[in-house]
Structure formats: structure tokens, C-alpha cells
């Protein structure tokens, strides 16, 4: 119910329009309900009394009323569409804005796929819910109630006999609807199962072929296919029994009216016109009931979607920017310090959370390069994500130029940090657009300078349209290494005081990587560099190398020192390069011209 209340919040700005829509609906129902009475009038007053004037005038009135009803219906549908679509638009915007404000912690809990579903199908489900409520969903019960009342007005005794019939059909409808949902869910599961088999078969085609498992796959698929077919047949049979069952009730009602009404009419207590009107009202009572069953799905889906949407809208951003946020003092030196930092995910459920980082202390002097080395899962990326406050430390503090990052405004903080994330994400637009993503107004020379430093300039010029080449969806027309270099140029353009490279040269060959590093020494002179890497060749020349293992710093120092002092470093070194260096040294012998 709470979810409905929250939903109502989105309807509120359009409440006048919604009320207008409902008013039109009431008018429409009233007009429609008048028609059978007019028919009765034609029969009783016109035909029976042989009064052609009554027939014609009543017909004219009927036509006028139905035309009115159509106008009112159009007004109702137009205003309800506007309300529903406005709500959908506002909802989409609210979700989108909310997502844009999410911190990494929030994003870890919701995948892109899920967020897209919230933004698309769930928003539309809510929109349908609103629209249905303003139209048929309200119209059906209204016209049902109206018809029942008019049935009583037309003939109380006849109406009373209809009551048990109405009750029984209501019960039948409820029983059908309540059994429908689980049946549908079961079929959905079977369909999911079938799709999983198909999906695995397609994705794992190479494996299936190489192990010659087509027969087994066909067997698996066959089983799922049989299951699905049986389940679907059952649901369809169930569903298709519902409508005839309800029609039977209408039919029984009609027969009762003809019979009992007929007997009364013979006794002179009821006119023919009234019988005809009564049958019409009976139809108008039961038809909405059938419609409501179809709507129950829309209702259930809409409510479920509203709930899921609320999950997004209610999510608290993990990183909260304080109101009295400071800005960094210009010029920013870029001194970076971690003070006994702990981090674990899911800050609220502390007992289950395993620490990702433990007691991290480090210091990077302005202008120096600090490298962080470690295996997947050792906590490297998490560590650097604490600097721009993509996550907040669970304990301890991260400071830039001596100011705790939590006290800084996001604008000032991010304005001085350049990040090349691990996963290279480029946006639709030209290569140039992508490089100057952080500063759309950047001049041509700045763009080329950044591209040159990132060793991207040459390959960009070789692209069909140079810097104006459009980047395809997800950078499809660039190789992994090229994408990474564009991403580096993008970060460089901002001339940040602190540059963070999160394993961002993993797809670049070693030679180019060396060139990038050399170019950065020049381009980024004076700014602090934090380099995360898995490949040992990336970190060799850093001023400080930090070795992370399961969230702890296990060694710190320069390459040569570490080789001597740290067994873990040595182990990584050996496993990646093996005795390669020794061999190479032996091989090259005296030919090396020293260092």
C-alpha cells in the first residue's frame, strides 16, 4: 500500500486533470446507462401506443446522447493519456536522475540491465496502471454499480433474483483470477528454463560441438520443450474456460429474465420494454466483471513494478556530500594520503561483510608515481576508488593536500582528479567528442596534445575521418588498446593534479605502454600519478610500488628493493616473467650498454 502512496505522489501534479478525466468517465457511464431506458421508452410508449412522434424523438435523443458519450469518452481518454504519460515521463526522469546520483556502492547492487528494466518496462507498467485506473478500471465498476441500481429501479423483484447469480459469478471470477497468477508464474519458469538451455547452447556452441554433445543438448531441450508445452496447454485451457463459464452466467441471467420477467409481463406487472431494458442492464453488469479479470493482470504488474521502482527511488546514495563542503586550495599540489583505511562493502551489515581493504596507510608526494600491484580481487581498484569518493572508507581517512576528501565538494574533488577506469567506456559521438568529454569547450591543440601524450594521435589520424570518426556503440570500431588510449587522452585533457590509471594499459602492447609512460612524465609534470596494474612491466619504473594481497599492503618500495625484500613480489614476478629476465641477461651478456 505504501508503494501506491508513493506512486500517488507522481500523480499529484496532475490531479486536476486526473479528476477531470474521472468526471468525464462518470458522465460517460451515466449517458451509456440511459440508453436502455430510452429503448424501453420506444417500445412501451412509442410502439405499443403506436405513437411515431415518441419513437422519433426518443431516437433523436438517444443519438444525441451517444454522440455526447463519444465526446466525453474522447475527453476522458485524452486527459487520462496525458496524465498517465506525464506520470511515466516524470517517473523515468526521477529514476534516471536518481541513477545518475548513485555512487559505486549503489551501482554494485543494481546491474545496468536491471536499471534499464526499471526505466523501461517498469515505468510503462506503472503508466498502464495509471491509465487503466483512469479509464476502464474505474469505468467497469461504475457501470456495474449503475446497472445494478437501474436493474432495481426497473424491476426490484427481477433484480433480486439476479443477486445470487451475480454473487456466484463474482466468486467464480475471484477463484479464476487467484489461480491464474501461480499458473502463469509456473509457465514463465518453464519458459525461462527453455530459454536458458537455448541460451547456453548458443553461447557455448563451441564447447557443445567440440564435445559432440548435440544429442545431449537436444535431450535437454526436448525435456524443457515438453514441460513448457504441457504447462502452456494447461494454462490456455484454464484461461479459455473462463470466458465461456462467465458467458454462461450471463446467459442464465438472460433466460431467467425472459422466463420470470415474461411471467410478470403476462401478469401485467412488467412491460416488454422493461424486459428488454433489464436484459441490457444485466449485460452491462456482467461484462465489466469479465473485463476486470483481464485488468487484474495490469494491476498486479503495475503494483509490482511500482514496488521495484520505489526500491530504486528509495536507495540512499552511499556517499553523502556534506553541505558545508570545501574546495581545494589552488594551486592544488596533489599530495595524497591514506590513513589507516579500512573498507568493506555493505556498510550496514557489518558482521557478514568481509574487509576488502584493511589498515591501508600510504602517502604519495606531489609529482610522484605510486604503483599498486596485486592479483585480481586483492582490492586495488577499490583502493583507488576511495580517492574520488566513488566509495567512502569504512574507517580511516583519505586526504588530498591534507584535506579529508569527505569534506570536499564533489565538483572540486573530481575537477582535480583524472581517472582512466579499468573498464574502458566510450560514448557515442566522434573521437574528438570523447577526448574532450570532460571539457567540451577544449581547443583543438589541447585535444591533440592529450592524444599525442596518450599515443593515440597517430592511430586517430589513420582512422577514416580522423578525429571526426564516429565511435560506434561501445567503441566497436576501435581495438581494446585504441579505446584505452582514447580514454587516457580523455583524462589527460583535464590536466588533473592527480591522475589515476586503473589497469588502463592492459590491452596496449608493452612498447606503446613505455612510450605513454615517458610522455606522461612530460605532460603530467608535477602531478601525482596512481597506477594500478596486474602486469609487472607496467609498474617497474614507479617511485613507489605497493603490493596488495587480500586487502593488505604486504610490501612497499622500489622494484629492486622489493625483488630482494618481498617474497610475494618475487613470486608474482617469477610467475609472470619466470626466469625470463635471467635468461635474457645471460643471452645478452656484455652486449648491454648498461643503465
Amino acid at each position, binding site marked *: 500500500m505504501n508503494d501506491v502512496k508513493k506512486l500517488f505522489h507522481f500523480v499529484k501534479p496532475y490531479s486536476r486533470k486526473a479528476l477531470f478525466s474521472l468526471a468525464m468517465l462518470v458522465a460517460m457511464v451515466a449517458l451509456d446507462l440511459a*440508453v436502455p431506458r430510452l429503448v424501453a421508452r*420506444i417500445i412501451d410508449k412509442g*410502439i405499443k401506443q403506436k405513437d411515431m412522434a415518441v419513437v*422519433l424523438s426518443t*431516437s433523436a435523443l*438517444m*443519438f444525441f446522447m*451517444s454522440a455526447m*458519450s*463519444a465526446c466525453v*469518452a*474522447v475527453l476522458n*481518454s485524452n486527459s487520462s*493519456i*496525458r496524465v498517465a*504519460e506525464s506520470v*511515466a*515521463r516524470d517517473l523515468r*526522469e526521477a529514476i*534516471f536522475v536518481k541513477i*545518475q546520483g548513485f555512487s559505486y556502492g549503489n551501482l554494485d547492487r543494481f546491474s545496468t*540491465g*536491471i*536499471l534499464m528494466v526499471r*526505466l523501461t*518496462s517498469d515505468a510503462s507498467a506503472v503508466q498502464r496502471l495509471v491509465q487503466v485506473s483512469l479509464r476502464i478500471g474505474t469505468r467497469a465498476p461504475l457501470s456495474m454499480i449503475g446497472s445494478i441500481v437501474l436493474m432495481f429501479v426497473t424491476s426490484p423483484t427481477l433484480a433480486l433474483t439476479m443477486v445470487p447469480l451475480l454473487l456466484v459469478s463474482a466468486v467464480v471470477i475471484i477463484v479464476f483470477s487467484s489461480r491464474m497468477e501461480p499458473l502463469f508464474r509456473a509457465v514463465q519458469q518453464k*519458459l525461462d528454463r527453455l*530459454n536458458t538451455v537455448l*541460451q547456453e*547452447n*548458443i*553461447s557455448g*556452441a563451441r564447447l*557443445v560441438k*567440440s564435445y559432440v554433445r548435440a544429442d545431449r*543438448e*537436444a535431450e535437454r531441450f526436448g525435456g524443457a520443450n515438453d514441460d513448457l*508445452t504441457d504447462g502452456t*496447454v494447461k494454462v490456455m485451457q484454464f484461461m*479459455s*474456460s473462463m470466458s465461456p*463459464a462467465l*458467458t*454462461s452466467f450471463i*446467459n*442464465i441471467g438472460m433466460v431467467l429474465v*425472459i422466463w420470470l420477467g*415474461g*411471467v410478470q409481463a*403476462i401478469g401485467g406487472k412488467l412491460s*416488454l420494454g422493461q424486459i428488454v431494458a433489464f436484459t441490457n442492464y444485466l449485460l452491462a453488469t456482467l461484462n465489466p466483471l469479465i473485463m476486470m479479470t483481464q485488468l487484474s493482470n495490469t494491476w498486479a504488474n503495475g503494483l509490482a513494478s511500482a514496488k521495484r521502482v520505489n526500491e530504486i527511488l528509495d536507495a540512499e546514495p552511499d556517499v553523502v556530500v556534506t553541505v558545508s563542503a570545501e574546495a581545494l586550495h589552488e594551486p592544488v599540489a596533489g599530495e595524497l594520503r591514506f590513513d589507516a583505511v579500512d573498507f568493506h562493502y555493505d556498510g550496514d551489515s557489518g558482521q557478514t561483510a568481509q574487509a576488502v581493504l584493511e589498515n591501508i596507510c600510504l602517502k604519495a608526494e606531489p609529482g610522484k608515481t605510486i604503483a599498486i600491484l596485486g592479483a585480481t580481487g586483492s582490492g586495488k581498484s577499490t583502493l583507488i576508488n576511495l580517492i574520488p569518493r566513488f566509495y567512502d572508507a569504512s574507517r580511516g581517512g583519505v586526504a588530498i593536500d591534507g584535506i579529508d576528501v569527505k569534506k570536499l565538494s564533489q565538483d572540486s574533488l573530481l575537477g582535480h582528479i583524472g581517472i582512466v577506469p579499468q573498464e574502458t*567506456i566510450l560514448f557515442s559521438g566522434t573521437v574528438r567528442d570523447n577526448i574532450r*568529454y570532460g571539457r567540451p569547450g577544449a581547443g583543438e591543440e589541447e585535444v591533440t596534445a592529450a592524444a599525442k601524450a596518450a599515443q593515440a594521435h597517430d592511430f586517430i589520424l589513420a582512422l577514416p575521418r580522423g578525429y571526426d570518426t564516429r565511435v560506434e556503440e561501445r567503441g566497436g570500431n576501435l581495438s581494446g588498446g585504441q579505446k584505452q588510449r582514447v580514454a587516457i587522452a580523455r583524462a589527460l585533457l583535464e590536466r588533473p593534479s592527480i591522475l589515476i590509471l586503473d589497469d588502463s594499459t592492459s590491452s596496449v602492447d*608493452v612498447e606503446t605502454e*613505455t612510450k605513454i609512460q615517458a610522455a606522461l612524465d612530460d605532460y603530467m609534470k608535477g602531478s601525482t600519478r596512481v597506477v594500478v596494474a596486474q602486469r609487472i*612491466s607496467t609498474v617497474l619504473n614507479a617511485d613507489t610500488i605497493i603490493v596488495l594481497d587480500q586487502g593488505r599492503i604486504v610490501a612497499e618500495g622500489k622494484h629492486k628493493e622489493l625483488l630482494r625484500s618481498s617474497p610475494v613480489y618475487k613470486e608474482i614476478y617469477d610467475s609472470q*616473467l619466470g626466469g625470463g629476465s635471467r635468461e635474457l*641477461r645471460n*643471452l645478452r651478456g656484455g652486449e648491454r650498454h648498461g*643503465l
Partner: protein
Amino acid sequence: MAYEPTPMGKDIRASMQRRPSQPGKIEKAKDPRLAMARLLNYLIPYKVQLMLVTGFVLVFSLLGLGGPYLMGLAIDRFIGGKDIPGLIRTAALMLGAYLLSNIFQVIANWLMASISQNALKRLRAELFAHLQTLSMGFFDTHAAGGLMSRLTNDIDAINQAVSQNVISLLSGVLTMTGILIAMFVLNHWLALASLIVIPIMTWFTRFVATYTRKGFRDLQKNLGELNSVAEEAIAGQKVIKAFRRNDAVIASFRERNDAVFKAAVYANSYALLLMPLTGVLGSFFVIVLASLGGWLALEGLVSVGMIATFINYGQNFVSPLRQLANLYNSIQAALAGAERVFEIIDTAPEVADLPEALPIKTIRGDVRIRDLQFAYTPGTPIIKNFSLDAAAGQTIALVGPTGAGKTTIINLLTRFYEAQGGVIEIDGIDIRKMRKADLRRSLGLVLQDNFLFADTVMENIRYGRLEASDEECVEAARMAEADHFIRQLPQGYQTNLSERAGNLSQGQRQLLSISRAILADPAILILDEATSSVDTRTELRIQKALLRLMKGRTSFVIAHRLSTIRDADKVVVIDSGEIVEQGSHQELLDARGFYYRLYVSQFKGNEI
């Protein structure tokens, strides 16, 4: 060549969520008649049942028409004639007709549900069976995600049309014809008056449908744009945030969102016009009948009961007309879907085994490759004059830059693709003269992506040899150094990987792949070493497991690990589809050629 196993179907499920069919989405089949004919083929086995269904539909439609007729009769003859027993008889007759009609309708529905679903089942089974025969080239050129959503949506479209529409179409047409006949028989003046409705209704529907379709097409386009903006912004949110572009992104989203709003209002306004218009038409119809009937009744030409009957018929006459418009759209969508499904079914399968192909029992593993030629697209050869010998039990390391053709060699060895020139022989037999199943059974593949199924760990290992016992699977895992981590999983070997295959690390997935290959016990091993580094402990385990796996088998390794390269019997250096050098690691280093340069650049800096 990359084909990523997506984690079990979240996205698919989203795309599976049924949406009400929108007229704008309708795609037309290129050759609707052919698609229809082929689709109907699937119904042929149910000829008899279908005839039964048609019979039932005929009966229930006609019985349904009997009701109103009897009602008119009751009003005129019995109520008017004050004949209570006659009235009761007629009422009983009406009840019988109605109930019988409904029962027949249920039977027809039940039959049709079973027919349509079984026909659909056959279509799905055929499609799946055909997918198994398609070449690797098909899977490499069709992205799994796209193929998947296409298949599910297309089948769903067919399902919707077949299961819901056959009966409504039949009964709609029958009811309309029946009503027309009945009306003409009863009173041709009133019947003629009723006919006016048809052209008006058709015109209305067409008018509304034209605008609605245009509106929805426009909406669809706008929605597509909104979704692509949203998807990019959500997937790239971290970068957007890092570069402080949130406001700009929100502004562009807002703009598209507004366009969607406008398009949606336009499209829906037209779509919802149909109901009130047909409503007016319906009541117009009733009014015409009532006033004309009233006049005729005054003249003594028709009875009151007749008017009641006509009004009732009139209401039944309009509703099938309204449905037919919807049916048309749904059938169009189904035909378009069917056409695409048939397109896949018509895709030529892999090259068939030669009729004279001999069954192969045991393979030693001598491999001889001569003058191999291959191009994925004509004109850009990937493999040129490739020749290589591997004696049984030898390990061959394939080394070379990305795009050199290493993976292609493996694709040709497994006959995922057929060489366009040259020959590959195993134990002296041309592999083209072997049955593909035999060939592949003798080869074991451990690939980079380590595909795992949504099943238990045990079943994933058993995939290597289906008849293997649990103990054999565990033994294979032990040999593959995987036993240790498997036992630490929540349910050990029975842990289901369906939900959280993602929580196995790359290294662990690789160990499972190796277990599977060990269990399969192939004569020849093909290994594409993972490039991504794993933690040192797992790395050591993998190296140990691989050594055990390669022992005693001819092994082709696309090598990234120095240790593998050094231990290989022969290192083959490939560049641009040709062998540029081959020999042992040491020999190649001494030669100071391509390999030496590759090696130095790979391990630069280590001379410090």
C-alpha cells in the same frame, strides 16, 4: 570471435516480459504467403483435430445465434400471447442452446490449445535441432544475445497469433456470416439497414489505424533513442560522474524523454479513438434498428420481439469486426517472426560427413598439416601455406601477435571451419575423411572463456564424459587441482552454478574446464591459454594441472605463459598466417629473429 557467456538470462527475461502488441511494431513479412504456408505445414498432422475444432466452432457460433432468435420468439409469441408454458419451454430451450454453445466453445478451445502448442513445440524442436547442425561460422557471425532475443520474440509472436487467434478468427467470421444470414431471413429491411455499419466501421478502423500506426512507429523510434541514451548513460555512469557530466546527460535525457511523452500522447490519442468511435457506431446501429424497427412495427411489418432480436444480433455483429483489426496486426507480426525463424531453419548446415567417412576408434595423435589455406572473407587470407608436424605426445606452442591466425589454426583442426586448401592429417588420415563427431571426440578443448552450464559443478565436469561416475568426476577434479576449491563451495560438488556462476574466479573456471578435459581423456589437446592473470596460488595450480593434462597427449597450445613455451617440444611462431620461425625456445632465442624481438618486448625491462 569472442562469444561471451552472458549470466543466465536476466536481460532475456526482461525482453520476454509480455507487452501488449503495439501497432507501430508491426513488421511485415517479405513473402507472407510463403511464411503462412510453411507455418500451416506444422498444423497438417492435426488435420483431423482441426476439422473437429472447425465443427465445434460452427456449432457453438450457430447455437449462440439461436439464443437471440428464441428471445424474440419468446417476447412475441409467448409473452405477447400470454402463454406461460410456452414461455417456459422457450426459456429452457434458450438455456440449452446457450449452455451447449458454451460447452462446445470450451471443447474447441481445449483442442485448439493442445494443437497450437504441440505444433509450436515441433517448430521449436526443429529450430533447435537445426541450430545444432549449423557451422561455427554461423555462431561467430551472430551475436548470442541478438540471436537469442530474436528467437524468443519471434516464437512468442507466432505463439500469440496461433494460440489466440485461430478460434476468434473462425468464430468471428462464422458469427458474422450467421448473423447476416439470420437477419436476412428474418427481415431483409432491417438486415439491409444493418449492413450500412460495415463500410462505416471499416472506414473508421482504417482511418484510426493509419494514424495509430504512424504514431506508434514514431513512438517506437523515440523510445529507441531514449533507451540508447539511457543505456549509455547508465553503463557509463561511473565515467560520467568522474568527468562531472551528470547535468549534461540529464538534460539530454530530459529532451528525449519529452519527445517520447509527446509521441506517446499522439499515438495513444489516436489508438484510443477507436473505442469511443466504435461505441458510437454501436449505439448508432441500435438506434437505427430501434427507430426503423419502431416505424416498421407501427406499420405492422415487424414485431417487438424481432426488434429485440435484431438489437442483440447487432451487438454481436460489431464486436467481431472490432477484433478483426487486432487480429490482422497479430498475424502480421507472427508471419514476420515465422519468416525469420524459417530463415534460420533454412541456413545451410555444416559440411556433411563424406559418405565414405570411416569410423575411427583410437587415435595416437600424429598430426601433419600441409599447405593450409584459409580466409573468413574471400580475398583476405588469414592462413597462408601453413605446414606443421607434431608427433604423438608432443607439445606445440603457437606464439604470435594478436590476429596472426593462431585461433584460426585451431578452428581448422577442429573443423569448426573447413580449410580452403591444403590438408590436415591425424594418424595419416585426412580429417575431412573422418566423421566430424569422431574427430572432435578425439580432441580436447580448453578455451579462454571457460564456458560453464547452469548446473551443478559435478554435471559441469561430467560434460566431458557423460557416462562417468561421480568418483571419476571427483578424480578428474583432483587431477586438475580443482578438488580443493570445489570442496570449499557451499554445497561442494553439488553447488549449482546457475545463479552465481559469476562468483567463481576466472582461475577457478579454468580449473573446472581442465577437469572436464581430463575426464574426456582426448588423444589431442587444444589449449588456448588465458591472458588475464590470476592470483599466484591459483596460477601455480593451473600450471600444474595443465602439465598433467598435456602429459601423453599431442597438445597445441596458444601460449601466453613463459613456462608453457619453455616446456614445449616445439615453438611455432606465427605472423600474418604464416610460420615465420619454429624450433625450441632456446633455439629461437639464439636465432635472434622475430621470436626474440617478440620475447624482448614482452619481457622488457627485466634486465634491471
